[in-house]
């Protein structure tokens, strides 16, 4: 295929388009005004004949930019799927005829809408290059797992089973993590009745036997640099000896540390050796090895034990954990069984407020505990007195009375605190060229934005997305196990296996230069013109994924495989030097500029709508399917994320004579739904600054509105456009019409 640009514009007449619009006129515009090289109309473009017609042009005419002027980009994607060329969709079905009434009086404005979309499609095509991988990364089928507990070992084994090399780094001298300290674990299979072997030894043996897995114990990560496909990791032994490994992806399975029970003096911890945490009880049970468990103070065989659930958890008190650790209910049942299995006459009482034993296995296990004689009492403990024998004072919530128990031993279910390294909001990264490793960091990332993964909530490194639990904010680095969210062993195993899959996927994506979620498969990547760059750092700071570093001269360094292609950097750049092959300041800017702006006195305003392709644009599509109308003066352009909107588009539009601009992005704030985390937030912030520009232009602020629009805002999204039309009617047309 020659490099010469050849644009084909294809106008469909199906689905009523031909009945409602003068497609011939549109074809003329595509050819004469927009200068498409090949222009064709078709009665039914998406059928085999229509598709063949386009393919023929690609093959025979050398068409390499295909502008399909038909239905929405969300429709008929299987049909309009051509190799090696850029495909652009002009939306005249959902975007025009389905949102406009089929009346004579509406005909003129509807036709104008369609003509503009035709121009826009061809102009967008003109500023497209079919993306090719940059070749920045090669394939490195090797992954790093940080943490040698159940999660880390599982991730390593599962990745190795798929044929990948693994380097496993554990800071302790032994693999096993917390699970390695357990006597037994909660069962994971039918009949869910008895504590079972932890499986840690089997995992260790599997790792030992697998020559694809290399283990570094007593080691930590002192520096991680690079990007998916080409990470470089410094692994430092206790001795200070450091080796460097190159890996394609990273799994952080750094686990948790037990909550510090010293924060719970009211529950007797630290005052009596016979008040222990769950993890301390495991040590006693290990020592007993199936025999009677003895209490720490005097070695007496325990005859009665009380388990206090939610000790320091699910509480707003200072120093307490605001969350539920998820596994402790089942863990206490298991531990009560340690006593009961050794001697059924031991009294075991679990004091709880909500017993949380979910799923098939959970309820069976709860029942099994009851069958063994474990007593469950709904109650809240106020105090554990330790002077001369233990006294657990609690309120029995069912019998509605204050009462007490005097057990030999008290076990506190204290929950977990994630081992997530340093909080990058609090601990700034070293300046470029001044690297120093932080002993509190897990990964010691050399990323400009900080040494560890950003935290989500309560110190956990979870994804914010319900449907996409692995989407951390650092591409190619996945967290697994209880560092991500509180979880039990069974879930940690599932989680680690899933994280291994994502790491492998990251490796394969990086190898081919493809983007990861949510623009999976996208081959475009950001490039920048160094000569125009003012080193303002906005791109580096605002990138939601920490993809951009700074070199020592303080120029941005793009790391293609860390990039998610959201374009937030492009939106941020005040001098507009950042662009993607298929998405740039021009590819959108030219669409904005190349529409017909009617004369001020025509009473035909123009409203630019920049709609996020993830939520707002589909919402408008659905509105169209439901026949919800909106103003014929709107011209909607989908954007990758509102974060990619460069203010120049807005000011250019206003300068060109648009009367209003509506920006539609996703929800921001704590429960953000922006798939690129901060894009919507950034856009709102930037648009607040546009107000100054408006003032300079002597334009009303109401001419630019930024909204959060959900995909379900099927009625609201059109209404927001109509609201703008009304506003314009009130405040008048823009004075900037030429």
């Amino acid at each position: 295929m020659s490099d010469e640009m050849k644009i084909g514009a294809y106008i469909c007449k199906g689905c009523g388009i031909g009945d409602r619009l003068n497609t011939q006129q549109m074809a003329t515009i595509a050819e004469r005004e927009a200068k498409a090289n090949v222009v064709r109309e078709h009665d039914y473009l998406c059928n085999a004949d229509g598709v063949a017609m386009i393919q023929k042009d690609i093959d025979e005419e050398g068409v390499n930019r295909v502008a399909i002027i038909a239905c929405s980009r969300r429709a008929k994607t299987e049909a309009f799927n051509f190799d090696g060329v850029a495909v652009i969709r002009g939306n005249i079905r959902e975007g025009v005829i389905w949102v406009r009434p089929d009346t004579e009086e509406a005909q003129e404005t509807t036709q104008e809408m369609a003509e503009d979309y035709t121009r826009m499609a061809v102009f967008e095509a003109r500023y497209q290059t079919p993306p090719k991988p940059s070749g920045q990364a090669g394939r490195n089928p090797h992954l790093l797992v940080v943490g040698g507990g159940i999660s880390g070992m599982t991730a390593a084994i599962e990745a190795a089973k798929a044929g990948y090399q693994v380097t496993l780094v554990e800071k302790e001298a032994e693999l096993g993590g917390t699970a390695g300290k357990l006597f037994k674990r909660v069962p994971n299979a039918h009949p869910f009745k008895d504590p079972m072997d932890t499986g840690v030894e089997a995992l260790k043996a599997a790792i030992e036997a697998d020559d694809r897995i290399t283990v570094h114990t007593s080691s930590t990560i002192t520096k991680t640099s690079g990007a998916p496909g080409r990470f470089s990791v410094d692994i430092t032994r206790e001795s200070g000896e450091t080796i460097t490994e190159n890996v394609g992806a990273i799994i952080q399975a750094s686990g948790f540390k037990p909550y510090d029970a010293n924060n719970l003096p009211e529950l007797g911890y630290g005052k009596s050796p016979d008040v222990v945490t769950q993890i301390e009880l495991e040590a006693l049970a290990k020592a007993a090895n199936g025999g009677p468990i003895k209490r720490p103070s005097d070695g007496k065989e325990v005859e009665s034990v009380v388990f206090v659930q939610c000790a320091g958890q699910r509480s707003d008190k200072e120093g307490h954990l605001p969350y539920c650790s998820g596994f402790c209910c089942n863990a206490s049942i298991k531990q009560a069984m340690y006593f009961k299995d050794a001697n059924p006459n031991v009294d075991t009482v679990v004091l709880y407020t909500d017993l949380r034993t979910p799923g098939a296995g959970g309820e069976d296990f709860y029942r099994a505990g009851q069958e063994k004689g474990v007593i469950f009492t709904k109650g809240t403990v106020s105090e554990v007195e330790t002077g001369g024998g233990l006294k657990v004072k609690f309120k029995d919530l069912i019998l509605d009375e204050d009462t007490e128990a005097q057990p030999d031993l008290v076990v506190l279910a204290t929950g977990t605190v994630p081992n997530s390294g340093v909080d990058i909001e609090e601990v700034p990264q070293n300046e470029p060229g001044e690297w120093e490793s932080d002993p509190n960091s897990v990964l010691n990332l050399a990323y400009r934005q900080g040494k560890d993964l950003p935290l989500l909530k309560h110190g956990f490194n979870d994804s914010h997305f319900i449907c996409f639990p692995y989407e951390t904010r650092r591409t190619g680095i996945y967290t697994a196990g209880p560092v991500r969210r509180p979880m039990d062993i069974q879930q940690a195993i599932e989680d680690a296996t899933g994280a291994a899959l994502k790491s492998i996927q990251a490796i394969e994506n990086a190898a081919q230069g493809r983007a990861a979620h949510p623009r999976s498969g996208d081959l475009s990547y950001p490039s920048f013109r160094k000569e125009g760059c003012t080193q303002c750092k906005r791109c580096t700071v605002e990138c939601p994924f920490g993809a951009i570093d700074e070199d020592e001269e303080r120029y941005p360094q793009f790391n293609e495989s860390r990039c998610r292609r959201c374009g937030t950097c492009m939106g941020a750049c005040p001098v507009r030097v950042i662009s993607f092959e298929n998405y740039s300041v021009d590819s959108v800017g030219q669409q904005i500029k190349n529409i017909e702006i009617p004369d001020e006195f025509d009473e035909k305003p123009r409203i630019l709508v920049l709609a996020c392709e993830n939520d707002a644009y589909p919402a408008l599509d659905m509105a169209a399917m439901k026949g919800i109308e909106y103003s014929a003066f709107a011209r909607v352009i989908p954007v990758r994320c509102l974060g990619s909107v460069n203010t120049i588009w807005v000011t250019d539009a206003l300068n060109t004579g648009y009367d209003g601009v509506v920006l539609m992005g996703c929800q921001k704030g704590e429960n953000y739904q922006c798939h690129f985390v901060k894009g919507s937030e950034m856009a709102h912030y930037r648009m607040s600054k546009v107000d100054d520009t408006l003032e300079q232009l002597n334009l009303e602020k109401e001419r630019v509105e930024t909204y959060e629009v959900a995909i379900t805002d099927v009625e609201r999204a059109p209404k927001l456009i109509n609201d703008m039309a009304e506003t314009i009617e009130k405040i008048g047309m823009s004075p900037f019409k030429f």
Partner: protein
Amino acid sequence: MSNLNTQMIEKYRNSFLREVEANVEEGEWVKMCMQCGVCSGSCPFGPHWEHPPQEIFMMIRAGKRDDVLTSDSMWMCTSCYNCIVRCPRGLPITHIMHGLAHYAHRLGLAPKENPTHKFAIKFWDNLTRTGRVNELKLGLALYFMNGFSEGIKTSLKMKDIGLGMWKTKRLSPMEIVGGHKCKDVSGLHKILAKAREIEESKAQKFSG
């Protein structure tokens, strides 16, 4: 306090739950309650129980032996089986209530003046005498269970019912002198005596 009661207190000092498990019909189910309360909400006599069934289970777990055994709550069970069919854990609640009532009676702790307690004893005595219930005698015994003058009052109050039943041949004054009975009453008595003996020897074994 009955001898048996004293023995039981000694034996199960620490755990009323274990005492119930060992000695009460279906008592081993008490520990399986998951505290949902559906039994208590389902009972047609629910408002009249001082301690509805789930609370009794919780009291057993909490070791409130006296409170449970002297309670008149279990004696409110109408044997409607609502609780049983709704219990998510399949506890035979009706039977546990009967079992607790029986156990309380055996230990001499059941409330003496509870009408159902009295009636239930009389019913048993009535039926075991001949092998079949004599409704007239049972009724009269019931009316007079609170003493003679109370009995006259009750009888008068109930006379319309008696009269109606008599008129429709669903009650016969002749029953007072004879009535239906099993032919092999002595065999039945032997069976019951043996059954009681086996049961008591088991209790002895537990308490010994």
